[in-house]
């Protein structure tokens, strides 16, 4: 096969992006495009996997069989989302075992939101409402991302995410119809999760160094601040309907802009949590590491069983 000149590769790639067509696994792509995608998709996959923990803790303590079944299904979905995304990363040449090792060594990151604790069952509802709501804002545009396998994984994820948000909101509606104590639990959870949820969209645009390049490559479709605004505008009327107060005195409708004004989250807190110093970072990683290590014998046994069966069927064929 003849070497294609690099300039020709680049122009085919750029032309594909310019025509809003998708880049597929075996197409030529710039090294930095591949590296950016591997980093983003791995981080996204890790977030789904680590994201099973805060809610998973409540499966045994869910107050009814109905809530238990729902929570089980949701946590199972998060595992599925992680696996779709690891598959997408593998199409770029990333190695799945290697990604897991990088996660538990702290060399690859996951969403800062999962480093906060789930203190009451109301947190389960607020996670569905805020965290999955914010995830939907982030992920719907990613269905049109320029890398084919990533976009296709996101289509699947988004279809399932809607149930996550609705079950959370419904859980909170139910609690708000309960006792004063239950209503107070909901408000307390809202107070604790609001700011970390706003941080899920990442640093503000003027402090987001890789954003411009990701937008030019069609990996990202909207800036962090645009998506954050969309989330606030979407959530305010839902909070009113639910009867809770979002903990921001600066939050008000701006007629001129046609959007809500809101205060900036504590960006220093985001930096601290991302760099490993959040309330649950060590606990989350330790749990993931333990699951990986405790599962090692199962993976080895399955591989040994498969090898034995292959050998047996070969012998059978030879006889």
């Amino acid at each position: 096969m003849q070497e294609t000149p690099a300039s020709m590769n680049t122009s085919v790639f750029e032309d594909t992006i310019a025509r809003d067509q998708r880049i597929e696994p075996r197409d030529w792509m710039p090294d930095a495009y591949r590296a950016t995608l591997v980093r983003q998709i791995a981080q996204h996959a890790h977030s789904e996997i680590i994201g099973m923990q805060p809610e998973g803790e409540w499966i045994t303590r869910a107050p009814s069989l109905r809530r238990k079944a729902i929570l089980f299904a949701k946590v199972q979905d998060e595992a599925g989302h992680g696996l779709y995304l690891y598959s997408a990363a593998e199409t770029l040449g990333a190695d799945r075992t290697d990604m897991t090792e990088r996660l538990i060594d702290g060399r690859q990151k996951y969403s800062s939101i999962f480093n906060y604790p789930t203190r009451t069952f109301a947190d389960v509802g607020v996670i569905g409402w805020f965290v999955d709501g914010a995830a939907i804002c982030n992920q719907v545009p990613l269905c049109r991302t320029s890398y084919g396998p990533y976009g296709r994984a996101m289509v699947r994820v988004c279809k399932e995410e809607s149930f996550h948000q609705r079950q959370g909101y419904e859980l909170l509606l139910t609690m708000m119809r309960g006792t004063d104590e239950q209503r107070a639990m909901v408000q307390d959870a809202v107070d604790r999760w609001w700011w970390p949820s706003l941080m899920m969209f990442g640093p503000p645009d003027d402090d987001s160094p890789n954003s411009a390049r990701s937008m030019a490559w069609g990996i990202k479709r909207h800036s962090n601040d645009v998506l954050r605004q969309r989330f606030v505008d979407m959530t305010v009327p839902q909070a009113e309907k639910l009867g809770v107060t979002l903990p921001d005195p600066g939050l008000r409708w701006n007629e001129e802009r046609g959007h809500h004004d809101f205060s900036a989250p504590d960006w220093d807190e985001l930096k601290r949590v991302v760099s490993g110093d959040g309330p649950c970072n060590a606990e989350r990683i330790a749990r993931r590491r333990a699951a990986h290590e405790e599962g090692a014998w199962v993976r080895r046994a399955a591989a040994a069983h498969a090898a034995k069966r292959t050998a047996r069927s070969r012998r059978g064929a030879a006889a």
Partner: protein
Amino acid sequence: MSPTSKAEWPLYEVFVRGKRGLNHVHVGSLRAADDDMALLHARDLYTRRNEGVSIWAVRSDTIAASAPDEKDPFFAPSGDKVYRHPTFYDIPDDVPHI
């Protein structure tokens, strides 16, 4: 197709038939120790909401694929044969059912 140096289990491509009468369509991939496990994982991963009535799981390293680099010459034979399309033929508007 992709390097599997550290991977403990081989990669499978998964195809799902959404309902009777439709083709199996590629939905994604997964890793499994053997064919039986690939089918179980495919069921749990890709059909949690009744998305399918039949699954194929195929070892990725057994798939023969056309190379993207050879795209133009490989598909060239069909490029200049417009007469294979119905729109190539001029038929007067008043001829019915054609």
